[in-house]
């Protein structure tokens, strides 16, 4: 037990963070949880009555009169999870080899490249996504280039497709994957790799049995940091995705801002949060088992 004085100091030091998280995170979350089981008001807002049909609309026990079950909500949820998973995988494939390459560079080059990785943060996300819009549109840079090179005969319709959404998400998420991954790879003890070779393990065996488990914490951290915002992302599908690129984030945004159905939006948000939590807990538990 800490001495009284130390406890007071600790309390004072932790108070700001506790206060901010409590007021601006926990409280809104509780409000969302509460709204998700209340009746939507006629012109927005809520009626103070218990109302489980919000979840019924999503999962299939709607009454069929006031609220109608639409499987599209679950489909969009699955699509969001799929897009997010794909984003994680692509980021991982892009970043893992680069992390190894960079960890072997001399110190000053490493710092330069680390700076370059964080460079996108210096400009607005919206601006950068509009730049992709200009690149991907039929008369955009990409298509002009491909046409000029004779790779394609007619402009590709990339914009407003799921591919454009995933591309955009990978683009904005790469730094978040790279930094924890690089930290893990850079910390990898080279003598472990040498020991593995010395004991007769081939390159593939060394990768599977030593390098992968040793860098797993970085892989898990990067994946989690990329996965969570990806599932709920609404800006990328808003700008680069068409009807087929709609994600949960867009749906929730629409419920709050256009349909003015706060309780249904809240219910959707709670579903996303539960699913993400379940995915993460499973992932963390599995990676613990792998590491033993």
């Amino acid at each position, binding site marked *: 037990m800490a001495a009284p004085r130390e406890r007071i100091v600790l309390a004072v030091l932790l108070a700001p963070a506790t206060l901010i998280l409590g007021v601006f995170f926990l409280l809104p979350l509780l409000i969302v949880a509460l709204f998700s089981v209340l009746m939507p008001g006629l012109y927005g807002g809520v009626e103070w009555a218990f109302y489980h049909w919000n979840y019924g609309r999503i999962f299939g026990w709607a009454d069929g009169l006031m609220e109608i079950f639409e499987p599209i909500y679950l489909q969009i949820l699955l699509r969001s999870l799929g897009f997010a998973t794909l984003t994680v995988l692509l980021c991982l494939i892009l970043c893992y080899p680069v992390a190894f390459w960079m960890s072997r560079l001399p110190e000053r080059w490493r710092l330069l490249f680390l700076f370059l990785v964080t460079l996108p943060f210096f400009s607005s996300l919206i601006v950068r996504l509009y730049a992709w819009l200009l690149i991907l549109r039929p008369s955009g840079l990409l298509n002009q280039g491909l046409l000029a090179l004779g790779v394609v005969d007619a402009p590709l319709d990339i914009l407003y497709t799921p591919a454009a959404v995933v591309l955009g998400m990978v683009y904005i998420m790469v730094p978040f994957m790279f930094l924890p991954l690089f930290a893990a790879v850079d910390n990898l003890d080279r003598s472990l790799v040498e*020991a*593995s*070779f010395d*004991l007769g393990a081939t390159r593939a*065996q060394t990768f599977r049995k030593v390098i992968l488990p040793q860098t797993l914490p970085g892989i898990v951290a990067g994946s989690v940091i990329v996965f969570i915002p990806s599932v709920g992302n609404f800006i990328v599908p808003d700008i680069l995705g068409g009807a087929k690129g709609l994600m949960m984030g867009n749906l929730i945004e629409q419920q709050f801002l256009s349909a003015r159905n706060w309780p249904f939006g809240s219910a959707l948000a709670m579903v996303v949060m539960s699913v993400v939590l379940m995915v993460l807990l499973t992932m963390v538990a599995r990676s613990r088992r792998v590491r033993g």
Partner: protein
Amino acid sequence: MTALLEIRGARRRFATPEGGHIAALDGVDLDVGGNEFVTLLGPSGCGKTTLLRAISGFEQLDGGSVRLDGADLGALPPFRRPLNTVFQSYALFGHMTVARNVGYALEVRGVDRATYEREVGQALEKVGLSGMGARKPSQLSGGQRQRVALARAIVAKPRLLLLDEPLSALDRNLRQQMQLELKDLQHRLGIAFVFVTHDQEEALTMSDRVVLMRAGRIEQQGSPRDIYRRPRSRFVAEFIGETNLFSITVERIEGGLAVGRTAQGLALWLPAAGLRPGQSAVAALRPADFTLEDGDIAGQVSRSVYLGSDLHLFVRPNAGGPEIRVTARDRAGAPEVGTPVSLGYDPAAAHVLEEA
């Protein structure tokens, strides 16, 4: 008898940050017998670690060859070389249990379960770690980790074991104990050890042969006694143990003995072999070669360092010149600072360096 390991003309150059080159290995020839304990000894940067890494395959040679059992290793990647290494940092796999660490070489070869269990058990037993298999390396002490690294390296029964300063992280008592255990283990396994160290005491304690390296070359090699008693050069004499070096000019030869005199006029009796009057030479005498009485080097104790069973005395000769270091037993009547002494020694113990 042909050697197990044959190194011929090994060369390796590294670029320096200033744009130049340094030769880490500058034409090294070395043979290691089938069950020999060879120590590569030298100051840091002498090339001993580069030589070890060239044998294990982690360093490519610019020139020369490395042969094991007659087969050229040059083209083989490290994982195809039939030898194993104990790393300085142990390099244990932290995500695996002790048993899996030890069994790694068997695991990657895909040996059957029964053989695997048996060999891992035996290897752990050989290093005195039976029953520790289920632990993680992080739950072991430094000495125990050292043993795990050792067990892991011998589990696949290599003909040659390379050890890269494996004892440097241990405290003194444990290190001395491990030195004896390593020597004993090498004897029981009947395989060759190539041991890298910068600690001359370690080298003398364990080795069948000491290979002293300097600036990418082998300066001298021989049995520990040989290299201690008959150093070829000033560098060897000063690197291996403490020594007193006297630059002398030979005055005359009397029978089997020569009389040399230092610039300060101190006269020394030396074995005459190979010396001619008028010749300059460097003579070496170890601190333990001196007695404090009945000699003909008169001097005064200027400093005294207590070492437990021994005393380390610094004697300033009356004739002048550098202080002479003398080891004396610590007992009643041991001379104190200021005591006049007359140092004596057996002229046969004096050694004249081949190179000044």
